[in-house]
Every structure is written in C-alpha cells, then in structure tokens.
C-alpha cells in the first residue's frame, strides 16, 4: 500500500473523484488510475482467467498488463497508462484474454 508524501489537499493541487466498483475514490489530477487506486488502499484490480488469482499493478510502465481494468465500459484498459478523469467509472476485470475485443 502506498501513501502520499503530501496529500493533494495540503498542496493546493486539483482533485478529481471517480468510481471504482462500489467505491468513490479521490485522486490528484494527473494521477494514473493505477496510482490513484494504490494510494487509496485498493490493491487488487483484476483476476486471472486461469485460476482466478488476484492481481495488482506490477510494473507501472505498461509492460506487464497486470493492471487491466474496465474504464467506462471499455475492457482491457491499462490502469497505469490512463489518467483519472472526474466521474470516471472503473471496474475490476475478471478474466479476459484478448487485446482486441
């Protein structure tokens, strides 16, 4: 789990609010979805298609694809490569093997 060196409120930075499954999450404007989740106490973003094992962001640079989530209805979005937007709906992804869907 990760914490901020200084919370966005304390540094006058713009804040955005989005939805993750049933939760409402607050993040710093400019955060990736993965960073926003990891700093909000959310550590699991998908499960594997083979054994249903829980997975979380691993590389944060777009190579491991462990951070795949569903964003506003689109599956297979790399949470570490997408910036949060106000009102975004993010969902955990169960399974899903293909990149073209």
């Amino acid at each position, binding site marked *: *789990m*990760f*914490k*901020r*060196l*200084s919370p*966005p409120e304390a*540094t006058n*930075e713009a804040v955005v609010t989005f939805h993750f499954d049933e939760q409402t999450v607050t993040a*710093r404007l*400019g*955060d*990736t979805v993965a*960073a*926003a989740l*990891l*700093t909000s106490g959310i*550590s*699991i973003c998908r499960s*594997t298609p*083979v*054994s249903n*094992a*829980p*997975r*979380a*962001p*691993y*590389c*944060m*640079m*777009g*190579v*491991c*694809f*462990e951070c*795949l989530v569903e964003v506003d209805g*689109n599956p*297979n*979005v*790399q949470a*570490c*490569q997408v*910036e949060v937007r106000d009102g975004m709906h993010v969902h955990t992804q169960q399974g*899903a*093997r*293909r*990149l*073209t*869907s």
Partner: protein
Amino acid sequence: MITHDLVILGTGPAGMAAATTALEYGITPVVIDEQPAAGGQIYRALESTPVRDRRILGEDYWSGESLIKGLKDPQIDYRPATTVWQLTRQREIGLLHDDKAEMICARHIILATGAMERPMPIPGWTLPGVMTAGSGQILLKSAGAVPQAPVVLAGCGPLLLLLATQYLRAGVEIAAILDTTPRNRYRAALKHTPGALRNASTLLKGVGLLRELRRAGVRHIKGVSALRAEGSGQLERVLWKQQGDDNWQTLETPTLLLHQGVIPNTQITRAVDCHHEWDEQQLSWRPRLDEWLSTDIPGIAVAGDGGGIVGAKAAAMQGQLAGLGAALALDKLTLANSTERAQPIRKALARDTAIRPFLDVLYRPAKQWRLPDDDTLACRCEEVTGGEIRRMAEMGCRGPNQTKSFTRCGMGPCQGRMCGITVSELLADANQQSVEETGYYRLRPPFKPITLGQLAKAAEEG
C-alpha cells in the same frame, strides 16, 4: 495517409535528443509518446512531479530539464498521450490518441522506446504487494507516492540502490535491502575497473549511493541466495536465505519491490521482425544496428536503451547520432558532413559506455534468479511454471513458439513481454543449446490494446 519525413517514437533522453538534432538540420519531426508528458523513464513527470524538494530525486533527475525544453520547440510536432499499436516494415504507424486511431507513414523512423526491468521470477512474485523497483520509482516521481509500511527492496543493480536512497531522502522506512549480487562478483568486476575509470563520475555516484545508505544505517543484507514472497491473496512476508546459511529468515511486510537490472524493450522491433541477436554480456536480446543505429529494415533506426543498455547520458548521445543518421538518410547532410559531425559524439559515447562491462559483470544476475524453479510461474498471464516449460523441452520443444502453442505461454495480454526472455533462457538451458538458436516469440500486431471499434474508425477515415 499522410507521410512525414521523420517520426520519432519515445520522449526519453534518446528520443528528445534525436528530435532536437534533426531539427538543427531542417527536419521537423513528429514525436510520439504514450506518456502524458516528456521525459521517458529517467525524467518521468519532471514538469509535474509533486516531489518539489530537489534533493529527493537528485540532480541527475533534474538535469533532464534542458532536453525537455528543447522538445518544446514549436517546430517539433510533439504528440503526448499517444500510443503506437502498430508498425509495418513499410513504415506505416498506427496511433491511438483519446480513443481515436489513426495511421501515418514516415520516410524515416527512430525508435527510442527504451528499456524495461528484467523479470525476477521468484516464488510468490505475482502476489499483490510485490512490485518492481521501477514501479516504486514511477509512483514516487509521478504521484509523490511511497510505501506506507516499511518496505523490502530485493535484487541487484544501480536502480535498486538509487530508489533506496531516494526513499531514504523522502523519509520512507526501508525494512531491508536484500542484495542478490553474488559475493564473487566484486572480484570478477575488478578487471574491468580501468574501463570504468574512464567514466569516473558514474562510478563515484554509485559509491556515493552505497555510502549514503550505510551512513543512514539501512539494513543491507548481502549475499542473498534464495528469496520467496508469501501471503494469502496478498503479500504478507518475505523470506530469504543467505549464502552459507541454510535457514530461512523472515520479514513481515506488505510491500516488496524487486529489481535485477533493465533489458531493452524489444516488443516493437520484434513486431516488425528486425534482426535480433542475443547479447551474452548483458544477457538480453537486442536489435542488430549499424554505425548510424539503423536496423536491417530500411528507414528504421533504434536509439537509446531499446538497442542495448547504455544508460541515460549515452542514450541522449545515441539520439544525436540517430538524428544525424536521419539527416543523412533524408539528404539534408552529405556522408562526409555527417561523418565529421558524428565523430565527437562517437568519442563521448565510447567514454561514457566504457563503464558498462564493469556494471554488466558486477550486476549480472545469477542463473537461479533468471530461471524460475519448477513450481514458480514463468508466464504471469497464463500461469505457466518453469517446470511446465522444462517438461515441454523434454517432449521435444526447441523454441518458444512451440511451447506457446502447447501451453499458451506468451499468449496472454502482455504478449510475452514478461516471460519472453525467461522462456528463451529456460529452453536453451533445458535443451543445452544457445539462446540464439532457441529464438524468441513471433509477434503479431496490435502490440497495444485497441478495440475493434477504434480500428474500424481508423479504417473509415484512413
């Protein structure tokens, strides 16, 4: 389809230097990066980082400011937040920006897509809570985020020590550094000291990092010979053995950051099927490049860590060389002129990279850290173990494309980025053949996620 003179992919030091060099010779390049801001890995989020105390990330980080300023020249068509999902041998490039796909074409392309961290397949490495050191650093630079509870760092290499000192300066508690550098390595590296001394400033920086950690009293456990991560559904503890001691030792922690060096990210050069070779010193694949850093495909060059690990400074120098190469290819410079201008760059490059043999030998990960044991996952996506790959070898599989069709290993969403090098090495080891002979996955586009809807839109407009 619009054809541009020069398209540069990547805005790390290599891509940014290539862009400004090309501009000097009258070429106005298109520069693409999937990141929302320029900087690549080393200078990531330099303009927006919430970490304002410059001491924490260090002067090397902030030295990227001038390169980023150069990229902002209005004549450069810089397109951030744009992913390249396709590249053909005819130099057609598939772009995706804001849900909109587009195809463009280029007379000349410089790929400056950098490196990735070498996978470190230890038992438990897929547990949430186990991440890479690079990911820790990305969270620090771009979000000012650090581990909440005392963190364990494990593995080897300069980046691991750099992250430890950055954490230290930021006040992050480090439970331990578990150093997997084999003990005899220091002696083996010594014979490369004369080369390393040609780049004394880098060498001294490394020594400085170690001293900073020692002075602060960070627990630095050397000669770690075995490592595992455990927990139910989430990391709870890290266990390790030290050389010469048969007992497991334990630390409770929710965060383990792994690292054992970086390797070229060859996904794109593989996708266009450039000729690649196995670099035995760096234990990694790299595209074969000529003196202008061109691949064997006409009009496609590679600069920076994507063509073999050289480090950030040398990556920028290679960017300059590739920029000159582009000017030569696009008839903006004669061969004599570009050769003359390249000479001082080549000299500086040779001096800077003289330290590589020393670093490559010192931090060469031992076999046990590269080849997962029978019960450990090699392929994270499709959950294929080292043992399954070895069994496939026994049944006669010689290369990764065969094991792929039998086990799906390498067919998951990461398309083999995370398991490719491991499977090549596992099969080479099991079959007693060279990695070169064993080969690598054949890749198919797209190499980044794209939906059929986005593709259809591109086709209609293209």
